[in-house]
């Protein structure tokens, strides 16, 4: 403990589970917010600071960037799912009027339909399209395995030349024998195979970059969830200093995990711009977006679960197959929740290479697919032992937050009115289901934030990471306003330019919990400087001054209005930088969520209408209630789409995605929306000075599971495969009928 450090006592947790902790914190760190903190701005419902710019179209996204003399870049793509490239010749393309440059993308083999083989830049979009049509590529077409069933078949064509099989994985999991033996001994064993589909990110704004050179300095406007990541990757790719690159992402039209990397197109845009001596924009179209920018892997999960007669979880074995396309990393997280005895789980993960675009992290990677399978086996086990599925979860879940959520959610959805599985009759049958989630989202270094207080009383907060649409910019502004005792309107927030202090990639729901503490510290340090000026001016002790309601004053009221105080600033501005520290002790190591669904199944058509979702979510202390609810709504909507509609369809014959559009790739619209009831828990989780945790990802995890449970309850049959479309519901109904 250095001389400057101090001890503080905090109350973590929530009303039903308070934990007192004592911490030693350094001088430059404000006392962390906890359960006892009283707020005036934090926790309110605030419209996002850039709401007006967004709804009026003043907000400029990468697609909107048009520079004088700018060229349009794009790609000639392979029309075969697997082929050897004999030659790629752009000579004729370069003769097309307006085509300025071509860069063949050297490779000798194409492994998915739509893989780029040559990049071009042209003065207009028409010239670009004409040029692309003139690229002469000669292929030797090879047999493909574009679908997981094709890739797993005997004697399947090999996706990767240097491998013996399309399958690679963990092999025999540890505990396999113990688990097999335990299953033999279990009072009840439930078996099921659950399948989930490939889902694409389907961001409204497609991947796009604009590259502009000034001498050896490069400016990149790009739609990204990692401005600093793009900077270092492009520096690497072009072998130029990071110091010469500025990456700008003022506004973001969705990423969901597909925009971590610079992408091949960003470096290509920069190379084309260099070659042509003009700025170049590359903006992918919808087909390219679906086929070549990532996706959530599918899964086939074969499960066996042992349960005791009193409903306790026993041995559990899972074998998971999933395809990352030609990429890596297709694991489903199963189990990731509930109290499974540690030595009695055997989980095998097998990746299946397919001739399809590589997967990319997608909102809670691995979790929605794992959740669908796990909650399926949970429901089937509860049914097998004649126990209410909610009760079954309660007795197998020791997380205190979720236990609270189970009982709050049951009241809100009206669980006591839930009928026995399959007891409803008639054309329209209602049912209820439940699913749970866990997520980290604690955040951490590296994140730095500048806070400036100007002589006119205005305040600025800046970070160079991006606001991917979740409202991170507004979170910074709220935290700074709270710390300085100001209304939100007094604080201007800036994000999305790498000239500003470093920030995180938006992944793992870590942006807010990484930058909010740095923002608070920056405001704390800047405010302390201002207090010192006031203290000197009024002849009081700076430690006695509070910043509240637009004033800096003692408890007795001696002080100045914030604006008056700012006029004491001599140098034009006070500037302080806050740095995100490593996490201190937390209440829990992640956040907890539960969702309940009520559905109505039209048994004549097999259509599922989701009537209501009750989403109960913990995200630490809630900074902006409006945006937090918006995150929950967004997660539920994407989860509902995963449950009922979205699915990448690959043609078994030629290996193309057949629905690389927004017509046959189905995303729900207004009429498909349920009533979404959002219940947020202000949990003082600790870990950082704001107690903020992420909320972006966990909210999409259990929606499909809860809907699946509700369908099961309504029709008395389980749909084991996502999306749960009418054809599958009708098949489940028919199977139930024939089994009677």
């Amino acid at each position, binding site marked *: 403990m250095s001389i400057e450090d101090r001890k503080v006592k905090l109350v973590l947790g929530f009303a039903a589970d308070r934990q007192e902790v004592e911490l030693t914190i350094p001088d430059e760190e404000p006392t962390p917010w906890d359960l006892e903190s009283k707020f005036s701005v934090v926790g309110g419902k605030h419209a996002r600071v850039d709401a007006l710019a967004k709804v009026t179209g003043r907000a400029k996204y990468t697609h909107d960037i048009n520079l004088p003399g700018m060229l349009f870049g794009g790609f000639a793509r392979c029309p075969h799912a697997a082929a050897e490239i004999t030659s790629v010749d752009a000579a004729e393309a370069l003769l097309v009027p307006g085509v300025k440059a071509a860069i063949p993308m050297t490779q000798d083999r194409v492994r998915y339909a739509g893989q780029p083989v040559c990049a071009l830049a042209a003065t207009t979009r028409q010239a670009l399209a004409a040029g692309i049509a003139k690229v002469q590529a000669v292929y030797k077409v090879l047999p493909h395995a574009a679908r997981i069933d094709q890739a797993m078949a005997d004697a399947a064509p090999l996706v990767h030349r240097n491998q013996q099989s399309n399958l690679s994985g963990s092999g025999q999991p540890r505990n396999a024998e113990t688990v097999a033996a335990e299953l033999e001994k279990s009072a009840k064993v439930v078996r099921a195979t659950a399948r989930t589909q490939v889902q694409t990110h389907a961001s409204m704004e497609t991947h796009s970059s604009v590259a502009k050179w000034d001498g050896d300095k490069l400016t990149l406007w790009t739609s990204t969830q990692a401005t600093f990541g793009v900077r270092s990757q492009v520096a690497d790719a072009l072998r130029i200093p990071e110091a010469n690159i500025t990456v700008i992402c003022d506004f973001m039209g969705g990423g969901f995990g597909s925009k971590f990397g610079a992408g091949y197109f960003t470096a290509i845009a920069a190379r084309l711009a260099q070659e042509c001596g003009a700025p170049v924009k590359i903006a992918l179209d919808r087909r390219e977006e679906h086929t070549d920018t990532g996706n959530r892997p599918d899964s086939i999960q074969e499960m066996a679960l042992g349960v005791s007669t009193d409903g306790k979880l026993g041995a559990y074995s899972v074998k998971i197959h999933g395809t990352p396309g030609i990429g890596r990393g297709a694991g489903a997280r199963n189990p990731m929740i509930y109290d499974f005895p540690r030595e009695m789980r055997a989980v095998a993960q097998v990746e299946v290479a397919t001739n399809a675009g590589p997967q990319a992290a997608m909102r809670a990677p691995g979790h929605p697919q794992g959740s669908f399978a796990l909650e399926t086996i949970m429901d089937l086990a509860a049914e097998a032992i004649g126990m209410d599925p909610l009760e079954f979860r309660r007795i197998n879940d020791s997380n205190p937050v979720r236990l609270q959520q189970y009982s709050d959610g049951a009241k809100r959805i009206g669980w006591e009115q839930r009928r026995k599985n399959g007891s409803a009759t008639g054309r329209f049958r209602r049912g209820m289901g439940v699913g749970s989630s866990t997520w980290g989202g604690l955040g951490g270094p590296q994140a730095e934030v500048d806070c400036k207080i100007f002589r006119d009383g205005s305040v600025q907060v800046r970070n160079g990471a991006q606001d991917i649409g979740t409202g991170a910019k507004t979170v910074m502004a709220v935290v700074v306003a709270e710390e300085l005792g100001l209304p939100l309107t007094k604080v201007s927030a800036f994000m999305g330019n790498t000239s500003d202090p470093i920030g995180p990639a938006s992944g793992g729901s870590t942006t807010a919990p990484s930058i909010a503490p740095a923002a608070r510290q920056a405001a704390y340090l800047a405010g302390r400087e201002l207090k010192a000026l006031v203290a000197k001016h009024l002849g009081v002790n700076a430690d006695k001054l509070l910043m509240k309601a637009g004033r800096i004053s003692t408890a007795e009221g001696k002080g100045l209005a914030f604006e008056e105080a700012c006029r004491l600033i001599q140098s034009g501005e006070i500037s302080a930088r806050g740095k995100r520290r490593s996490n201190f002790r937390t209440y829990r190591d992640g956040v907890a969520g539960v969702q309940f669904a009520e559905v109505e199944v039209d048994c004549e058509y097999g259509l599922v209408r989701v009537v209501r979702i009750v989403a109960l979510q913990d995200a630490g202390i809630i900074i902006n209630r409006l945006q937090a609810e918006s995150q929950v709504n967004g997660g539920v909507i994407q989860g509902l789409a995963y449950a009922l*509609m979205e699915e990448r369809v690959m043609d078994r014959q030629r290996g193309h995605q057949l629905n690389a559009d927004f017509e046959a790739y*189905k995303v*729900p619209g207004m009429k498909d929306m349920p009533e979404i009831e959002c219940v947020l828990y202000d949990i003082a989780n600790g870990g950082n000075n704001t107690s903020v945790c992420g909320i972006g990802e966990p909210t999409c995890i259990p929606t499909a599971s809860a809907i699946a449970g509700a369908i099961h309850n309504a029709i008395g049959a389980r749909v084991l495969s996502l999306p749960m*479309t*009418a054809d599958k519901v009708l098949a489940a109904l028919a199977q139930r009928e024939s089994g009677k």
Partner: protein
Amino acid sequence: MKNFDWITPATPEAAVQAAAQAGRAFLGGGTDLLPLMKSGLREPTGVVQLKGLTGMERLELTADGITIGASITLAALCTDTLVQRSLPAVFDAARHAATPLVRNRATVGGNLCQRPRCWYFRHPDYACSKKGGDTCYAIEGENKFHAIFDNTTCNIVHPSNLGPAFWAHDAVVVVLGPKGERRIPVAEFWVRPEEDMRTEVALEPGELITSVSCKPLSGRSGSAFEEVNEKQSYDWGLVACAARLTLDGDKASDVRIVIGAVAPVPLRREAAEAVLNGKVPNEAAAWAAADAAIAGATPLRDNAYKVTMLRACVKNAILTAAARARKS
């Protein structure tokens, strides 16, 4: 998209004259033509826009029945009280289509002439039989949304939802061409893949639909259009049915049953009509007619569910039409 001439005639005759030049296309609302052009499936050298042409935006009761100008938008159709009262199936079909945004643009003529949504047809990298190739990829491929009737040659389903509704109201399609006006009974308006693979409608080159005339309900009669979609906002039909009947006492007569989204063209189901004619149109009779309507279905690997769904859809269309007839 390639550059094209933009032609704005003032009369249907001038439009037909402009379109006489090869390579030109008519543009109603553009909700189908533009996507076709963007994906390179159509590359017209000139686009003849049909907005504001004399007589093509009328909607009125005439000696022919209710005459609907071909440039009438779906939005206008589904907010019109005459249509709601006299052509309920047409009203339902227009209201059910697409989204408010699309309905504000899409026209009656365009709805009848739109090209199929088959994902092999729409994919630029598949030269399917409809595009001059020699394979229907849907037969062995991904055929969840394809035809369950008349599907040995080409497996498209006709995408028009007004088509079956017009047929249920015995419509006549009025077309103008280089050789003058023709009146085509809607039953003869559709072209099967076996007749001509390159089109779905009986229009000669350069011919333009100017209006559609429908028989309004009279006496104690009712009609209805029912469509099933996976998605309730903006989705194409999985199955559809238009039904019309007149009550003679409590018995159904003059029954029309037309099914859509299940074959390369809309299909009138006369066998099903015969089952219902002379019967009280109750649930049992409606199911019996529906059984007749699905007879002969030849589903593919992934679309047998459509048969089950169609059966219920026909039943529901009949029951709605009957309920309306009783109320009339």
